[in-house]
């Protein structure tokens, strides 16, 4: 018996040793994958991919010469309506080129997990991914994405989209001029509101009498606060706003960001310093404003709210103004879902007290996976080139996709296609994002915890909260090498 036990233990030890003995594939740079030229390991911090030449277009010969012809391309995306729209759109590409494009959809909850575990294994299950903007750092530095800089610049694709979307969906490190994704599905936070209440003559008269200016779509956050307070009537079951408060992943941070950015505050300066930046007076004021808005006017019970809950607050007739990503506004314009659809209006984030006006970014960019063959990389680049054309982008927008194409966003066709499109087009020129470096998850955990404690739980002061965030962010960034110690 003891002999048998020994054998079992031996097998386990052998398995563990095999697993620990460098079974993980070598960093992408050593295999002929294209992205490696530009990639730096996470530890090296924000080192831009200076050499990041796009390998596919240089190295890969046309598919007919280099290898077997590509007849099918696979794109991984999250499971939602835009992915269905893309699947409809790519039928045109198949008709034109004979290449079938499959949009593989993965539920949001497991989208990131499935993608990153496949990438860790150097897998080639998909040719392209329409990935989150936060993934850029991880995917660029670890060689999962092909560097698209030369491809996008030489084909003029970088000029077709709004500069803000190119920066936040495609560029890493920010400001480096190195592009890893084509801005595909633009998204950002905006507001939906009850037009019937805003345009009610009695309400308008009462509001003007109380606040001294006409009731209209708010142009500043102070006006938004006034309107929210005006409509908060617990006896009627009516409340001013429904804003993000969820702690799970990134919701409350995105909500606070809308205000922070519009107060002129940010997450870092040009050298990635956070002390004195994250806890700047503007950032502290902005956070205080968010908590005041929550305390005065949030629909009760929305203490852990994200996109579903805020939409539901408007659909249920509880909230007069709701914060949400534009991607979730089609439901509010659908009379089958929203009984107030006909009287629901949309507006872009108002300006802060110092004139700044920004919106927290959502959305995704399309990237080419570096672990596929050069032929497939070339075919993927050809697809992106086709997809980036203005007429295709116009069709993409007509189907319901949120294009980032600067010209299409300004066409009357687009602006009149949906009631929220004008606000979306306006928002796409003023988006800003959270960190997109490999340690963004650790930075996010801090902000989620601290914002939730201050805004929802009501603990501490705005200054203490931002000080703690600044200190912890500073520590995380230093440990990850994004802030070098002073000499």
């Amino acid at each position: 018996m003891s002999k048998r036990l020994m054998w079992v233990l031996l097998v386990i030890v052998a398995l563990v040793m095999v697993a620990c003995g460098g079974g993980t594939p070598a960093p992408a740079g050593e295999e002929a994958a294209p992205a490696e030229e530009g990639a730096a390991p996470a530890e090296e911090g924000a080192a831009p991919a200076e050499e990041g030449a796009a390998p596919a277009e240089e190295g890969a010969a046309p598919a007919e010469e280099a290898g077997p012809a590509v007849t099918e391309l696979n794109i991984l995306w999250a499971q939602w309506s835009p992915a269905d729209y893309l699947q409809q759109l790519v039928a045109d590409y198949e008709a034109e080129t004979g290449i079938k494009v499959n949009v593989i959809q993965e539920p949001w909850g497991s989208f990131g997990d499935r993608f990153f575990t496949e990438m860790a294994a150097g897998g080639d299950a998909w040719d392209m991914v329409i990935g989150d903007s936060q993934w850029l750092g991880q995917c660029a530095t670890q060689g999962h994405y092909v560097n698209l800089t030369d491809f996008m610049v030489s084909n003029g694709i970088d000029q077709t989209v709004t500069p803000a979307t190119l920066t936040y969906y495609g560029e890493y490190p920010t400001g480096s001029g190195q592009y890893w994704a084509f801005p595909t599905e633009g998204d950002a936070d905006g507001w939906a509101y009850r037009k019937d209440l805003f345009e009610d003559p009695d309400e308008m008269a009462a509001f003007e009498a109380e606040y001294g200016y006409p009731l209209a779509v708010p142009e500043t956050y102070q006006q938004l606060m006034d309107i929210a307070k005006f409509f908060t009537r617990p006896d009627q079951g009516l409340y001013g706003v429904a804003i993000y408060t969820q702690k799970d992943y990134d919701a409350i941070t995105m909500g606070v960001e809308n205000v922070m950015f519009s107060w002129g505050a940010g997450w870092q300066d040009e050298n990635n310093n956070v002390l004195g930046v994250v806890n700047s007076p503007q950032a502290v004021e902005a956070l205080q404003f968010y908590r005041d808005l929550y305390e005065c006017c949030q629909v009760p019970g929305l203490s852990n709210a994200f996109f579903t809950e805020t939409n539901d607050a408007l659909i249920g007739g509880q909230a007069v103004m709701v914060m949400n990503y534009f991607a979730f506004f089609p439901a509010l314009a659908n009379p089958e879902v929203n009984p107030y659809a006909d009287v629901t209006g949309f507006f872009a984030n108002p300006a802060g007290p110092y004139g700044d006006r920004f919106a927290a970014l959502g959305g995704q960019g399309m990237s080419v996976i570096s672990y596929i063959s050069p032929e497939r990389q070339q075919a993927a680049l050809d697809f992106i080139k086709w997809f980036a054309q203005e007429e295709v982008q116009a069709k993409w927008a007509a189907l319901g996709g949120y294009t980032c194409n600067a010209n299409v966003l300004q066409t009357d066709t687009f602006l009149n296609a949906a009631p929220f499109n004008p606000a979306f087009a306006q928002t796409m020129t003023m988006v800003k994002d959270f960190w997109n470096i490999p340690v963004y998850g650790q930075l996010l955990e801090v902000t989620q915890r601290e914002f939730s404690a201050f805004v929802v739980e009501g603990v501490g002061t705005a200054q203490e909260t931002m000080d703690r965030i600044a200190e912890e962010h500073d520590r995380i960034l230093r440990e990850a090498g994004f802030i070098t110690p002073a000499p």
Partner: protein
Amino acid sequence: MSSVKAQEMSTTASVAPRRTKTRRHLSDRAIQNLFMWPTLALLIAFNLFPLFYSLYLSFTNYSAIARIDPVWIGFQNFRNILQDRQLWQYFATTGRYALVSVGLETLLGFGLAMLLREKFKGSGLVTTLILIPMMLSPVVVGLFWKLMYNPTFGYLNYILGYTNPATAPDWLASRWGGTPVPGLALWAVVLVDVWMWSPFVMLLTLSGLNAIPEYLYEAAAIDRASPWFQFWRITLPQVAPLLLIAVLFRSIEALKSFDLVMGMTGGGPGTQTELIAVNLYRQAFLGQWQTGRASALAYIILIIVIGVSNLYIRYLNSIRGEA
């Protein structure tokens, strides 16, 4: 037809001795191995190997999504975790949660079992109905209770007589009439856990109660023992082993409670309901992917759970020894 029959017979005849031979070859030891080794292989592949591999990873800086080999960093992860005050706070919250919820479940479950011990018309149906909560998925339970706790349309406040949300408790936000009430959200989660798992304690206790021989009570009655004496000297000692097993299972579950909390509060507001398992999940996934550190934390939790379980088991054995 007949030729087919003959063919079948010849086939049977040729196979029969082979079967006998095969059966002769399958000794008891072979059958034992046949059953044991596949199970053992699965156990090694899916339990033991991950256990040992994650132990190794806990000494590295590995990230499951990075294409970088694990780098050995010794006890760094353990040191960082043990020096992290925030994590100690999560451990303390978990301890409070486990203590209060398991304590209440034990009292309530035992009480229910005592009530249901006496058979009455429809007692079977009542027992089944009481067991329903523990048969539901914790996430679903969490989402339903989230609605019931809602201060504007939830049942709970309505039953308690709070119809104005402005003055009512907002349980999951830890506020009462807008004023912060520390701990309210944790109590709200504990209440749901108690609602869900008291029936489990009741079930085990009830089976223990039903197993107590009737003659013990008859003898006590002849000796004119009071009901309290009978309860204290007969019922409780007899049912204690099963009750302790229920408490052991519930304590283990409570110490690694995750899905109910994620469904209801996501660990918020702030850190009020951030149990250690929730934080472990946050570190292992959710954009962080600190696999090495998360493995170290998982091992610390495992050691704590084993330690607590051992205390229970020792006590259980001592009770059995006395019995």
